């Protein structure tokens, strides 16, 4: 193998598994250390700059960081990264004096944002401090988009939502709320320098089965029904409810039903329990509220008696994998299952929809009616029109929408400055030694062996009776501090300088997880087996040095490194040192400085 090029900003970034996995690349270990120091406001601001909605995301994020967390590879559970983010939000002090100043004198550019969801608000947050004038259009009378309409209040209290939306709106956004746009052409005629479309994926899918038309009043689509509950247009549901679908929307629908009149609420999914798309913790929360989940039930028809929906019929199936590895659902031949119900909620998917964009404006759509976009710049085929969030590539999650927003803001700023938006700005990185003394590091390398701490929940009697009572209480301070000690500080990198190495084996002997091996160089596949303990996880890199005095190389398996720093502590020549790697994606403000 060739020596690893650690000058490539993505090399050490990839070692920070949580940050690498996060669409917005939030510097997770950095804020966890700040929480450990009780510097909650500082921890919050790191999040705020990176993901704009720490309090909201600390409750609702899909947490791609957690399955990626290295802790999950050395013991059972990852660090509770998401809930620590909430801790920063819960315990922070007033942050208003830390929000970037918005210049009174504008730069003369005017940007329109359509849809006041996470993507558009991120664009606004990034562009306002640079002097842009921002006009935000929203169909509803209030901002928030899916964060308001799709996430029930028992998971995200209204105060938390409003607080973080207002941080952005208060920076000076021209709000045109309650104004449904029916023509893109007319928006464009208002003469904006750029238009960003963040209208989400607002169309819920129906399940059109026999009996549908007769029972239409009692068949709902998940996202529209949740929005109606959020705006209190819907305040009750029948006693017997079936929720179809296995995603997070289904989990929100069943739990919401339980709170507004549903007694017998069940979730029914076509395929197996293991194939459900919902996050494991959301499934757990639903099960904890005594909601049964029936799997391998394929819906067949709505049963209507006397003009009223009374039940649904399902075919029972089992899973088989054919020779091509494709999953197939084979009917078991058993009697169909009849499940009585008063209401059915279809939470089987959603789509974006752009009937209001005329097709002669130069904004192209593909055959699935999805806008044709540049995946790096979010620019459409019209150079001044950008898309982000679910509107761009279909339904995803809040943190992805935020990441789109940041990148689109970069594009808009570069475009307005007359720069080539395809020349993306480099990330902002910093690599610096953490050595404080012979055996002392600036970070706490004595990681705790505790298992993951559970977030306490409010009493079920109380939460099931009031839709506005938040289920999760959040970590108390002590639990939070304990949980922070589980973080391995993966951003504190082991940096190796081959010229200094005397091949004494001190690092090999001390490493708790057998990461380091000195051996003859070979191809990667061979080298992975030649390690002290094999490096089988090919998603994680090997860190390979240049040739050493004896003709061998140092190879380090990044997969299981605890970042405990013992290799560097034992190294007599400082060939190993622990360097903190700070990585921030370039935001709009960083993109036009050359």
């Amino acid at each position, binding site marked *: 193998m060739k020596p690893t090029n650690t000058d490539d900003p993505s090399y050490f970034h990839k070692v920070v598994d949580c940050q690498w996995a996060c669409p917005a690349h939030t510097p997770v270990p950095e804020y966890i250390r700040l929480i450990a120091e009780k510097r909650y406001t500082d921890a919050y601001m790191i999040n705020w700059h990176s993901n704009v909605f720490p309090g909201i995301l600390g409750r609702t994020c899909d947490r791609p960081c957690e399955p990626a967390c290295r802790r999950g590879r050395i013991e059972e559970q990852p660090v509770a990264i998401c809930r620590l983010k909430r801790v920063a939000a819960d315990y922070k002090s007033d942050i208003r004096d830390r929000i970037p100043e918005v210049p009174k004198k504008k730069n003369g550019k005017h940007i329109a944002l359509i849809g006041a969801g996470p993507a558009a608000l991120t664009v606004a947050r990034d562009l306002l401090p640079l002097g842009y004038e921002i006009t935000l259009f929203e169909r509803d009378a209030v901002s928030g988009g899916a964060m308001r309409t799709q996430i029930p209040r028992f998971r995200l209290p209204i105060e938390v939502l409003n607080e973080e939306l207002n941080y952005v709106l208060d920076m000076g956004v021209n709000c045109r709320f309650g104004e449904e746009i029916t023509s893109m052409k007319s928006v464009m005629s208002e003469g904006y320098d750029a238009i960003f479309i963040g209208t989400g994926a607002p169309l819920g899918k129906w399940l059109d089965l026999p009996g549908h038309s007769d029972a239409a009043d009692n068949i709902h689509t998940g996202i529209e029904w949740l929005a109606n509950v959020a705006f209190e247009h819907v305040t009750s549901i029948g006693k017997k409810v079936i929720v179809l679908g296995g995603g997070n929307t289904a989990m929100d629908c069943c739990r919401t039903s339980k709170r507004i009149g549903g007694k017998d609420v069940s979730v029914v999914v076509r395929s197996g329990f293991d194939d459900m798309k919902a996050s494991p913790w959301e499934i757990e929360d639903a099960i904890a509220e005594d909601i049964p989940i029936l799997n391998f039930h394929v819906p067949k028809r709505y049963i209507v008696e006397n003009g009223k929906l009374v039940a649904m019929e399902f075919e029972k199936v089992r899973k088989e994998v054919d020779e091509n590895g494709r999953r197939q659902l084979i009917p078991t031949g058993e009697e169909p299952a009849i499940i009585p119900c008063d209401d059915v909620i279809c939470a089987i998917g959603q789509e974006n929809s752009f009937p209001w964009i005329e097709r002669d404006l130069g904004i192209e759509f593909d055959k699935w009616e999805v806008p044709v976009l540049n995946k790096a710049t979010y620019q459409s085929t019209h150079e001044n029109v950008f898309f982000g969030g679910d509107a761009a590539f279909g339904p995803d999650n809040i943190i992805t929408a935020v990441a789109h927003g940041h990148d689109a803001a970069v594009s808009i700023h570069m475009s307005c400055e007359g720069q080539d938006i395809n020349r993306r700005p480099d990330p902002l990185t910093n690599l610096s030694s953490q050595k404080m003394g012979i055996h002392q590091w600036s970070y706490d390398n004595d990681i705790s062996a505790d298992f993951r701490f559970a977030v306490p929940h409010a009493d079920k009697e109380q939460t099931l009776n009031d839709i506005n009572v938040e289920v999760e209480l959040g970590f108390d301070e002590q639990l939070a501090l304990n949980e922070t000690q589980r973080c391995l500080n993966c951003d504190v990198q082991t940096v190796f300088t081959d010229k200094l190495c*005397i091949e004494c084996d001190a690092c090999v002997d001390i490493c708790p997880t057998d990461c380091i091996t000195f051996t003859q160089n070979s191809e990667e596949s061979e080298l992975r087996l030649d390690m002290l303990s094999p490096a089988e996880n090919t998603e994680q890199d090997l860190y390979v040095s240049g040739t050493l005095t004896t003709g061998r190389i140092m190879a380090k398996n990044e997969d299981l490194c605890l970042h405990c720093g013992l290799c560097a502590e034992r190294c007599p020549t400082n060939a190993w040192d622990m360097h903190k790697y700070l990585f921030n994606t370039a935001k709009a403000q960083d993109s036009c400085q050359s």
Partner: protein
Amino acid sequence: MSYINKPKFKHPQLQTNDIGLTRRDYEGTLTTLCGGCGHDSISAAIIQASAEMSLEPHRIAKISGIGCSSKIPSYFLSKAHGFNSVHGRMPSVATGANIANKELSYIGISGDGDSASIGLGQFCHIVRRRVNMLYIVANNGTYGLTKGQLSATADLGSRTKSGEESLFDNIDLATLAIELGASFVARSFSGDKKQLVPLIQAGLTHKGFAFIDVVSPCVTFNNTDLSTHGYKNTWENHIVLSEVDFVPMREEITTSYAPGKEKEITLHDGSVIHLHKTGSNYDPMDKENALHHINAYKKQGKIATGLLYINQTTSDLHELQDTVDKPFNSLGCHELCPGDEALGDINNTFR
């Protein structure tokens, strides 16, 4: 020295051995030696060797004297028996322990000061008495614990970190051990575990006195370019006379080697060591031949390593003394004091 303990987390695929332990279970407390000390690699090699051999830690006794070297029994096999004795007197304690209970495996750890200076007399006698044990000298050519004076194993002309030159010829404990009747003598280098680990395994299995002289650089006081015991000089100048593969008794022997280049030696418990001779006419079964080669390389400034000498035919201390089969420490009152009748029988033999 470190402020934190070694985390308990381990590689998830770390292998367990025949008795269900992983290498981590053979560790001791965290080392307090200087970072980069060769002695830590010797600890690690002992840990690896005993884990691979599935030794039961409680059937091992580790005994040491005084010095940096003699601290290391703390850093491996924390579940074994241990005795940290007086300076240079490890051989006496080891002999006594071995006499009392011949069923344990004995690992003696000593240094060049402990064995070649203050304890040289003790060293000579334990070799001569053929105590069944593995005796390891962590040899760094310097008195590290007293801040870097030349030791008796420092080579002629080697210099300390402060520039002092060694005016005397060194004591070579390996050749001395061969001369005095040791039946297993090896030399190795702490930096080369591929060589050291099988030697430790063979030495632990060998019945009789097994001695390994391990060049183990003192990174703080004796690791300059002018030292013959530093990492650089040892990497450059150690010449492997015979490579050793150790195959425990239980395992099927599957490797095959080119004829003439390889010798198989079966140890008393059925384990096998494979010797790959790298020198053309080197014979580790021949005492004179071995001494000749070691000295010839020494004249060229080279350090001969590998299994230097092995003799499977000599008897150990217990065999020479014709002691009873049962270990002394398990003999009961009746066996030790068989009564008047037995005494009478003995007395009768003198009449």
